[in-house]
Structure formats: C-alpha cells, structure tokens
C-alpha cells in the first residue's frame, strides 16, 4: 500500500476543476434566468445545427484512413510510453541502456520512414 496523502494536491486540483467547470456551465444559466425574459417555444428550444438535419443515423461509411491514423497514433503512443522509464533510469543503465533505446527508436524510425514514403500520412 502506498502513502496516499501525496495524492492530496491532485484531489484538490480535481475539486477546483470540477467547481470551475460547474460554475462555467450553471452560472450563465442562472444569470440568464434571473435577468432575461424567459418564454421558450418549440422553435427556440430546437437544436441549432448550421443547416443540417439535427438528428440522423450516425452510422455511415467513413474513410478507412481515419482508422489508419488512429493505429499509427497508438503505435507512437506506446513508443513514447517506453521512453519514460528509460529517461529516469539512465543513471543506472548507462550507455548500454542508451544504445538499447536508440536501437528501439531506430526500428520505429524505419516504420516512420515507410509510412512517410508510402504517403500514409498524406491527406489530400
């Protein structure tokens, strides 16, 4: 079990964030209700959606390239996650650890060069 009191600042920040976001949502609503005229009708309460129909079936054919971008994001995300323990333990692992990470990064640079060369990162 870990000493949880060191997480108290995070809890305080969470509480502040929650309080502020609640204030930003509910304060304008309350002020508008108290100061403005309040007589809604069906048209006023309908969703404004820039000329599109507000409600339709969300499932439609998407381009598969969105998926490719998401997969590439996961791979580079994992690569970045491996960098954290490497960076803090370099004083223990020394040069062998450094070379290990450079080989690992080299492997992913090959993949990155391939993705770039194939135009997988190109949009239009």
């Amino acid at each position, binding site marked *: 079990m870990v000493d949880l009191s060191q997480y108290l600042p995070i809890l305080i920040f969470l509480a502040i964030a929650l309080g502020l976001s609640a204030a930003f949502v509910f304060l304008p609503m309350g002020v508008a209700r108290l100061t403005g005229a309040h007589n809604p009708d069906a048209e006023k309460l309908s969703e404004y959606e820039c000329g599109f129909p507000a409600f339709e079936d969300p499932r439609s054919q998407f381009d598969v390239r969105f998926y490719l971008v998401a997969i590439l994001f996961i791979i580079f995300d994992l690569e970045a996650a491996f960098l954290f323990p490497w960076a803090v333990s370099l004083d223990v692992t020394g040069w062998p650890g450094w070379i290990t990470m450079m080989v690992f990064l080299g492997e992913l640079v090959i*993949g990155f060069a391939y993705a770039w060369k194939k135009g997988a990162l190109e949009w239009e």
Partner: protein
Amino acid sequence: MIQVLAFYLFAALTIASATLVIMARNPVHSVLWLIVAFFNAAGLMVLVGAEFIAMLLVIVYVGAVAVLFLFVVMMLDIDFAELRAGFVKNFPLGMLIAVVLAAELVLGIGAYRAGSLELGTPDGSAAPLLGKSNIESIGALLYTKYLFLFESAGIILLVAMIGAIVLTHRERKGTRPQIISKQVRRRPEDATVNVKPEVGQGVQL
C-alpha cells in the same frame, strides 16, 4: 483506513462498470463504460504502488485503445438490431467459450495451488532498487536484463505499423499534396508579372 476505503471504491466501480460494458444496449455506451473501468483500474494500480502502470492505463488504454474502439463502433455501418437477433442462435457457442475459459482459469489456479507449477524462486536480481522510485526500477531491469524482449517489442510495433499501412493504405490518383520545397523555391518573379495596359484595353494574361 483510507487505502481500504479507496480500494473498495475503485474495485466496486471497476466491477460495476465492467458489468455495464456487457449489459449496455448501445455499444457506444459500452465503450464509455469501458473507459470508466480503465480509470478505476488505474486507481487500483496507484493503490498498489504501480504508478507507471497506472499512467500507462490512462494514456494507452483510455487515450488510444478506447478511442480506437469508439472509432470502430461509431464508424462501422452495423445494424445492431440484427446483431441482437442472432443472440439466441449464438448463445450455445458463447456459453461454450465461456465454459472453456472458466475451465482454463480453474485448471491454472488449481495447478498453481497444488504446487506443480515452478515459477522460479526470487534470487534478488529483480528486486526494486533501494531509494529509487519503482519506475526507475522498471527501467533498470527493462533496458539491461530484458533488453532482448524490449527490442522484440519494437520489432512487433514495426510489423504492426507496416501491416496497418499495407492493409488500409490505397494509392489515390488526382490528389494534390503540398510540396513544401517547391513552395519555398518559388520566387515572386515566377508568380507575378508587371503589365502596363493601355487606356481602354484589358489585361492580356
């Protein structure tokens, strides 16, 4: 005391949200409950002192994997009413898979309890470093003793990347990509002309 309270809070929320993942009618809601389950699992990891694993859960699972799930669930043009109609038909197969998995679990734990599994005795070579955080201990092991496994992970990521590109990338004709070197090379003289049209004449381009 507060650890015990936090443990039961996170554990109960994990189990509740995991149940809601499979009970939710809308698959998008399932994915959102999965994200809640991941967050609570990260809380449990913090409680046992594995901060790095907790961070990985939030960054990789919530940030990337769940988003990918959401992507797939929202994008695929699937008629979920039709899928649900196949529930009764696929029920025996699903039960069979569940029974097989449960049997494997029981067998594995039973074998371990009976002492027939040799997991190796700790010889202290993987002990956490004194006076260092555990992320530092992970790094000290991962980049020295388990170097080969780490590099293999890199190869697997490379294969995954190339596989994803090969499977989904199509060459598109008629695209007009940005060629930055060409943009930079272009001088004002190439792009503009100075003309002096006569009065009453149009400009001839």
